[in-house]
C-alpha cells in the first residue's frame, strides 16, 4: 500500500483545509477512502434509529498537483483508513500560508498519515512542519460497510433555505425539545417543527423550489412529507456548514432525511435516519 500526494496551489490548499474543518465538525472519527481518482470521507453509522451517515467526495485532480496511490492489491486498488478527523484539521491549520503540502502514508512505530508543510518565512528561507496523524488501516472484509450509499427514494425533494437561518432556529429549538419534525412538500415549502406538552414551535420556509423528482408525477404538491429526527444530529450537521453551499437539496421520506450538498466541487451526502 502506498500513498503520496502534494498540493502546491494556495487556493487548493485553503479549500482542502475548509473541507477538513467541515468533516471535523460532522464526525469525530471517520473513514478515509483513497482511490486513483477520488478521496472520500465516510461515516457509516450502524445505529438503526436516529443515527447519521455521511459520504463526502472530492476529485483528487481538483486539489493535488501530484497524486500516487497503490491500493491493497491490483484488483482492489483502494486504501481505507480510519482517523480522528480533528487531527487532520489541526495539522492543516499550520498550512495557512504554506508553500507546499505533502501527505503520505507512513509507518513510524504505527501506521500514520504524515502531513508535511513547507512554510516560507520572511527571509525567504523555508522550514518544514511535520504532523504524524495516527491511522488504522481498515481490513478489506469491512469495506462493504463503507460503500457509496444508494440514494433512497424520497417522497419530497426540496432546495434548502439559507443555512444560517436554519442554524439559528434549530439552536433555539434544541433548548425546548430533542425531537424535531422536518416537513416538506413539492410546493417549495419546508417546515421545522417541535412539539412538547408546553409549547409548539413551527418555522415556515416557503418559495424554496423543488428539484425535479421522478416519483413526483402523481403527488399532491401541497401534501407534506415528514420525518422525525433527533434535533442534535441536525444541529451538528448545520454547524459543519459554515460556508453557504453552491447547491443544497433536502430529500425527505418518513425513514430519513438526506442532505445533498455541493461545496464548490466537493459533494457531501448526509443522512439522518428517523427516530423510531
Amino acid at each position, binding site marked *: 500500500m502506498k500513498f503520496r500526494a502534494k498540493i502546491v496551489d494556495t487556493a487548493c490548499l485553503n479549500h482542502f483545509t475548509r473541507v477538513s474543518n467541515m468533516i471535523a465538525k460532522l464526525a469525530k472519527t471517520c473513514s478515509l477512502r483513497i482511490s486513483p481518482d477520488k478521496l472520500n470521507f465516510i461515516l457509516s453509522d450502524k445505529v438503526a434509529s436516529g443515527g447519521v451517515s455521511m459520504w463526502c467526495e472530492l476529485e483528487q485532480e481538483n486539489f493535488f498537483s501530484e497524486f500516487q496511490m497503490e491500493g491493497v492489491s491490483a484488483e482492489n486498488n483502494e486504501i481505507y483508513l480510519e482517523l480522528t478527523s480533528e487531527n487532520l484539521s489541526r495539522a492543516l491549520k499550520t498550512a495557512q500560508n504554506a508553500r507546499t503540502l505533502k501527505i503520505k502514508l507512513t509507518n513510524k512505530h504505527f501506521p500514520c498519515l504524515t502531513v508535511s508543510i513547507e512554510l516560507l518565512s520572511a527571509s525567504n528561507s523555508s522550514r518544514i512542519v511535520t504532523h504524524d496523524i495516527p491511522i488504522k488501516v481498515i481490513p478489506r472484509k469491512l469495506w462493504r460497510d463503507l460503500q457509496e450509499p444508494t440514494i433512497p427514494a424520497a417522497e419530497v425533494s426540496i432546495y434548502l433555505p439559507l443555512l444560517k437561518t436554519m442554524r*439559528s432556529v434549530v439552536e433555539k429549538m434544541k433548548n425546548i425539545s430533542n425531537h424535531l419534525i422536518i416537513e416538506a412538500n413539492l410546493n417549495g415549502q419546508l417546515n421545522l417543527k417541535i412539539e412538547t406538552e408546553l409549547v409548539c414551535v413551527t*418555522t415556515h420556509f416557503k418559495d424554496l423550489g423543488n428539484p425535479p423528482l421522478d416519483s413526483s408525477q402523481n403527488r399532491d404538491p401541497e401534501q407534506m412529507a415528514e420525518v422525525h429526527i433527533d434535533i442534535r444530529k441536525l444541529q451538528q450537521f448545520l454547524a459543519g456548514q459554515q460556508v453557504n453551499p453552491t447547491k443544497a437539496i433536502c430529500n425527505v421520506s418518513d425513514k430519513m432525511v438526506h442532505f445533498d450538498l455541493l461545496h464548490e466541487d466537493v459533494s457531501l451526502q448526509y443522512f439522518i435516519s428517523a427516530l423510531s
Partner: protein
Amino acid sequence: MPLITTQAEEENDYSLVASLDNVRNFSTILKAIHFREHATCFATKNGIKVTVENAKCVQANAFIQAGIFQEFKVQEESVTFRINLTVLLDCLSIFGSSPMPGILTALRMCYQGYGYPLMLFLEEGGVVTVCKINTQEPEETLDFDFCSTNVTNKIILQSEGLREAFSELDMTSEVLQITMSPDKPYFRLSTFGNAGSSHLDYPKDSDLMESFQCNQTQVNRYKISLLKPSTKALVLSCKVSIRTDNRGFLSLQYMIRNEDGQVCFVEYYCCPDEEVPESES
C-alpha cells in the same frame, strides 16, 4: 404574510393582541428580569407588566407600555396569565440572539383568553415562526406595599457607575449591605466574604450621582443571591434609582432605553435580610 392576515378576522374577540416591528424592544426588557422559570403577565390598555418572584423576598417587574407597540389592544379591564419565561424568551429570540445590523424581526402576539395558549408570530426575511405556548393559572404576586410617602432615602445614579461593582460582587458573602446616609459615607455597598469585608463608597457629590436625597442613616442587608440577578437590568439601563423605606425594604428602578430610543422601566423590590443596628456600620 398570508399566515398573519387570516388571523386578523378572528382576533376581534381576543383578550390581547399586540404587534411590534422589532421584537427586541420586548425581549430585551424581559431578559432583565429572567431569574426564574415562570413569570406572571398582567396586561391592561396601558401596557404589559411581567413579574418574576423568588423566595417571597424579591420581586422584579418589567413594564412595557402600550406606546412601545405598533399595535396594542386589550379587550377587558385586565388580562392575567402565568407563563414559562424561559420558553417565551427562547421563542422571541428564535431567529437568533445576536442582532444582525439592519435585520429586524417582527412580532405579533395574541392571547385569546383564559385557558388559551399565548400565540407568537415572528417574521424575519420572509420566514415565519409560529409559537403556541401554554399558559397557566396566574398566581397572586406579592405586594411589597412600597409607597413614596414612606421612602426615607433616595438616590439616582448613572448605571455605568454601579455596573462594575455589581458584576464583581463577592458572591462568597451571604449579604449585600447597603448604607445610605446624609453624612459620610453617603452611599456604601459592603460585602463580607471569605477573603474579608469589602466596602465601596460613592460620595454624594460624585459625577455619577444625579440626585441624592437621604434623610436618615440606614444600614440594611439583603441576601446577595436575591439581588445578584438585578445586574442584568443594571447592565441594560442608563440610570438607576435606589430607594429604601422605613422598614428597610429596597426598591431599585432601572431606566432602559431600547433600540428606538424609547424608555422602559424595570424595578426590583427586595426585603431586608435582618435588622442591623446603626452602631455596627
